[in-house]
């Protein structure tokens, strides 16, 4: 039995299409009922969960493989294999700030002149902290769980680190991208022990998932 962690939201549909092309089709549409485990024939099943939880489920072996954005793979720092870049779910993890702010004008060049730590809001505290540590810019990080743009507009933070897809949400709220931290796409993640112990099942599946 192969257990697959499937993310709810924007990655679900393209992920299911790739699994269908590889011959794994859920018995019912995930999300059509309240079922959290959806069988796919006799040899596989899908766990339906938030994409941020996918790395943990796979790292700890509750699922053998899973689909999630590179943002979640990196933020979780989970100890996983990530053999396939699906190419869909393309976006960027970016630093964004109000259009007329000092950060937007001079990037981080004179962050020192603020006279205090830069206040940054993000759903990605680990990746944000890494980025500013590399730049040598002291920051005061605020971890939020949604509507991160609001933090920069309302004065909670000087700037935000968040996913940018089309850039429309930023634009409508008067924010612009200052710098990109990472290019993001959806990845297949695999548990380290499952990869070895279920290799004969997994290898043909990985080949099919890779070639759409």
């Amino acid at each position, binding site marked *: 039995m192969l257990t697959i962690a499937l993310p709810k939201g924007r990655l679900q549909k393209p992920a299911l299409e790739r699994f269908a092309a590889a011959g794994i089709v859920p018995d019912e549409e995930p999300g059509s009922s309240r079922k959290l485990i959806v069988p796919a024939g006799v040899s596989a099943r899908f766990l339906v969960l938030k994409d941020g939880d996918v790395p943990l489920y796979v790292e*700890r072996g509750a699922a053998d493989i899973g689909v999630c954005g590179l943002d979640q793979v990196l933020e979780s720092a989970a100890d996983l294999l990530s053999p396939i870049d699906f190419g869909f779910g393309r976006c960027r993890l970016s630093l964004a700030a109000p259009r007329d702010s000092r950060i937007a004008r001079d990037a981080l060049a004179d962050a020192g002149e603020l006279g205090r730590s830069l206040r940054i809001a993000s759903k990605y505290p680990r990746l944000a902290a890494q980025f500013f540590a590399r730049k040598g810019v002291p920051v005061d990080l605020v971890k939020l769980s949604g509507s991160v743009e609001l933090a920069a507009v309302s004065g909670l933070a000087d700037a935000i680190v968040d996913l940018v897809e089309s850039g429309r949400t930023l634009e409508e709220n008067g924010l612009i991208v200052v710098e990109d931290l990472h290019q993001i796409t959806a990845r297949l993640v695999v548990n380290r022990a499952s990869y070895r*112990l279920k*290799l004969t099942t997994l290898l043909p599946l990985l080949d099919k998932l890779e070639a759409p």
Partner: protein
Amino acid sequence: MLLPSTKAPPQGTQDLLFEAARRLRRCEATLAQLFEAAGFGEVIPPSIESADVFGPEAFRALDRSGHLLALRADFTAQVARIAATRLAGVSPLRLYYRGSVVREGAAESGIPRERLQAGCELVGAAGPEADAEILSLATRSLHALGLADTRVSVGTVGYFAALISASKAGERLTRALSDAIDRKDLPTLRGLCEKEVAPGKARDALLLLARPPRSQEDAQSLLQKAAQLAPSADALQAVERLAATLAQAKSLGAELEVDLGEVRGLGYYTGLVFNLYAAGAPRPVGGGGRYDTLLGRFGDPRPAVGFSLELDALVPLAAVC
């Protein structure tokens, strides 16, 4: 006396009571019996050491005279110290140990701070037959505990090290390449190679390292390819050594897999490196490798090879205990 601020043991540690304690002791006894029968003798190093014996992962404290001490973070370094000092010059040495190690790790990843281990070290033996002896003993320990569905994933850090030195990769690039290989992340590895590694044999060989593991029979073609792409004598030697070890370890059969992407491990490995997997455990249940330079740090440069088992993961899976 002050009231304790918490009623639980420190995060990442546990109390073992009654049946759990009995199971652990039975597993330890089974392993000790196997190790003794294989000619290994037990050593019990102290639970604190001078901090410089271990890496930065050790839990440290100053004693009253200002010496920086560390809780045992790794048995192998301690056994190397013993072998290089009190047992200097006695070769070969077959030593085993059991007990706990304490490491400050990422707590949220669920790896406990204090881990129970047992393991063996073979000191003063440099040949492929020594590598095979350790591989075989590690595999037999899993069988002795009654585990049926297991894998031994075998590679060499020598080949990767030779490719890095041939491609003149700096520290940052080396870390990025090693991370991509360790994650079997071929797309990222390909991107790094195309952008930052000069075209040539070393680059093609690096791309070989993210390939899936091969069974022992299928490994021949992979090793031949790796030998053809070897950019230096060191690289070729690493592949030939791995092939010789595999030939010696033939009796291990289907459980053994060759994975040239086994590049991770404690910093001191110099050749053979392997990980043990068992159905029911989400992480490796043990691992080991060759560390030919570690004893030199204590003034007695001798080759050595060994392995350790993660008893916290193995005891719940063990059938005999």
